[in-house]
């Protein structure tokens, strides 16, 4: 035992040290960017928090102070390291950097900060639900590349059923479609033992093709099948009266509340219930679980179908929670972003939630950016969120390891 420890311990710490170093370097780089790019525009930036109050940030001094702090933090990280607190420091640094970036972009004007945060939360919904669907599948050993297809298919079903029978029926229709597409994934990968990546991609193409085909052939001729009034935001009593947070978190559609509940339920069930233990077991080492009497096949079927239902609600968000109709390829790659959120969040619901919020923020910033005149080509601003993701994944997340048995068919013998 001690021999193993002696071998393993330095390996882990070497890996950790490397990680800590790259965190330090990234902080320094962010500091330099803050100093030279974000510090080059004079003028105050107004962050509108509530209708009657605009919080003013002087963009240039803010960026310069931030730059100093970031470089100092980076140096401290490189010299000594924050140990347990690394992620907290990093989170605060990243959030401040984003605020500085916004101040830089908005300097000389003002914009609704609260509105942007609200957009962030709204737009992260399908990514959160898609990621939960991915996590539930992959934790039980089935790679779910088909999130995009499940979202798209259920968005279509939600739009058509919702137009004909009302939004609640639409959500049920979307769930049914999500479950149906998931059933294809389950049957092919569990029963017919087809490579899960192949089925997943085939489902994506199938959903894209079928919904586009039906939209072009049926919905254009019958526009009444594709129009509904989306659900309205519900202000939760008391909670929605809190300034800023009340608007951002508690004046939202049911989809948002459902997404947060899904994260909470998924986290709790994965780590604190018998179901969760068994699910994680069949994703890591199904043989052992099988030997101990877990019905691996049955549990995998059930989990893939549950995932489909969750993704179904995520797909229903487009027609029923947002735009009130279906358009060809309306999901536009959000399922792949959700897949990235799964890996980004290291197969943990809360991790995926934070990743989804980052992507949601990126979308919200893109929406706002088109109204702000920043002097640099808009394409680069639009590119920024993806670049940041790239840097974050490379610098902080690093090597991520998924469930061990994901992708391998199971033989019950």
């Amino acid at each position, binding site marked *: 035992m001690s021999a193993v420890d002696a071998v393993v311990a330095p390996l882990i710490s070497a890996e950790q040290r490397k990680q800590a170093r*790259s965190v330090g370097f990234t902080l320094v780089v962010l500091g330099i960017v803050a100093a030279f790019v974000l510090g080059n525009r004079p003028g105050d930036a107004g962050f509108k928090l509530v209708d009657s109050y605009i919080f003013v940030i002087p963009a240039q001094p803010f960026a310069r102070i931030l730059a100093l702090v970031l470089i100092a933090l980076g140096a401290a990280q490189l010299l000594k390291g924050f140990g347990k607190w690394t992620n907290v420091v990093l989170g605060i640094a990243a959030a401040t950097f984003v605020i500085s970036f916004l101040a830089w972009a908005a300097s000389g004007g003002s914009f609704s900060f609260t509105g942007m945060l609200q957009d962030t939360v709204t737009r992260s919904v399908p990514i959160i639900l898609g990621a939960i669907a991915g996590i539930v599948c*992959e934790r039980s050993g089935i*790679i779910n590349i088909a999130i995009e297809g499940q979202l798209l298919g259920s968005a279509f079903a939600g739009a058509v059923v919702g137009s004909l029978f009302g939004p609640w029926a639409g959500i049920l229709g979307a769930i049914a479609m999500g479950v149906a597409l998931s059933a*294809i994934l389950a049957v*092919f990968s569990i029963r*017919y*033992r*087809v*490579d899960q*990546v*192949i*089925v997943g*991609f*085939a*489902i*994506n*193409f*199938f959903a*894209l*093709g*079928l919904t*586009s*085909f*039906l939209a*072009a*052939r*049926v919905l254009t*001729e*019958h526009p009444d099948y594709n129009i509904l009034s989306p659900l309205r935001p519900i202000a939760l009593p008391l909670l929605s009266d809190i300034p800023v947070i009340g608007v951002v978190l508690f004046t939202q559609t049911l989809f948002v509340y459902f997404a947060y509940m899904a994260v909470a339920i998924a986290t709790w069930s994965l780590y604190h219930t018998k179901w969760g233990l068994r699910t994680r077991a069949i994703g890591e080492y199904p043989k052992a679980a099988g030997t101990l009497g877990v019905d691996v096949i049955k549990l995998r079927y059930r989990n893939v179908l549950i995932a489909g239902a969750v993704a179904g609600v995520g797909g229903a968000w487009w027609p029923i929670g947002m735009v009130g109709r279906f358009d*060809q390829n309306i999901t536009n*790659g959000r399922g*792949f*972003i959700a*897949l*990235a959120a799964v*890996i*980004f969040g290291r197969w943990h619901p809360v991790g995926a939630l934070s990743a989804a919020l980052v992507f949601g923020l990126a979308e919200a910033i893109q929406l706002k950016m088109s109204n702000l005149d920043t002097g640099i*080509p808009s*394409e*680069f601003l*639009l*590119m920024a969120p*993806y*670049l940041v*993701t*790239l840097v974050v*994944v*490379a*610098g902080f*997340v*690093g*090597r*991520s*390891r*998924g*469930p*061990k048995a*994901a*992708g*391998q068919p199971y033989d019950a013998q």
Partner: protein
Amino acid sequence: MKIVVTLRKIAERIARTSSFRLTLLAVLSAMVVGAFIIVLSDINKLQNGDILGAIKTVGSAYWALVIGSVGSLRAISATINSATPLILCGVSVAVAFKAGLFNIGATGQMLAGGMAALWVGFAMDGPGFVQVPLAVLAGALGGAAYGAIPGILKARTGAHEVITTIMLNNMAGFLVLWLLKTNLYQREDRTDPISKLVTAPGHLPRLFGFMDNRPDLIAHAGFVVAILAVIVYSWFLNRSTTGFEFRAFGMNADAAQYAGMHTKRLTVMAMMFAGGFAGLAGSAEVLGTYGYASQNFAGNIGYDAIAIALLGRSTPLGTLFAALLFGALQAGGRQMQANTDVPIDLIVVLRALIVMFIAAPLLIKAIWRIKVEPTSLGQAFRGQGS
């Protein structure tokens, strides 16, 4: 003569293998499901009780599909034209699969390669035998450079290529949009994002250029590049040391590491090769098909290529045939949309069904009640965890 004999041998071998029958049955099954979809979505006819009319539509749609893909020289040329970038991107995804990497980034690499090739294409003015190879090479290098990014990130930091390539795809789209508005690329008299034209000697020569009065035969020498790429890929995979290392790495990364292979270098190289092939696809589109670049000249090809590589199980010949099949569907689909009221999106459904059926030999066996030897499927790639 020797070539003819070899070709006949290959043809005989293909006809005998069960995977050929399997493919045929899978295509047939997909067409049957597609027929149901066409009939059931014909709401107007069904509401009038005109079931026969709806079924007739299936016939004319499928007939147009055949005619539009192989029915004439023009159709064959269109098929070849559609298949060219699909072959190259298919090889791109396939070579990464072989090394255990999932290249979703063919789109971005194609854009990078295409822009590099385009620059040589309009900045030079002949002679063609210098400019065209130079431009194609620039395309390969541009794609390889862009493909190297996720490779280096993975090797150095472990950042997962599924995330990084998706992000790089999105970034490439915006980069191209920006480039197309710069003085370097934008066409002089235009305000929208559209590039300068490739100079006349810079175009990839048309395959049927020897036929004087047939400007409608659009296939170009990019197809030759694609075939060469398949041959190179085949040689590389089966005959070269690095190819062997790729396969070893793809099958078992740990074993490859213990055997003393430089897995980090292999990761970077695999992504560079993948990027290079995708870059060739970009240059073929820019120099052969369009002669300029607009914002979205890569289209969905990079994603279709994933299906192609999966369908062809990442083997050189398999990828080639899968891409030809997809190209034929694409060309035929355009004809189908023109002749009937069936939208071209049907072919995306057909492609998905074909992939699914081919991947599930047991299902085909159950449907058609035949004996199909269970071909070993293996795993497309190592999974997401590594």
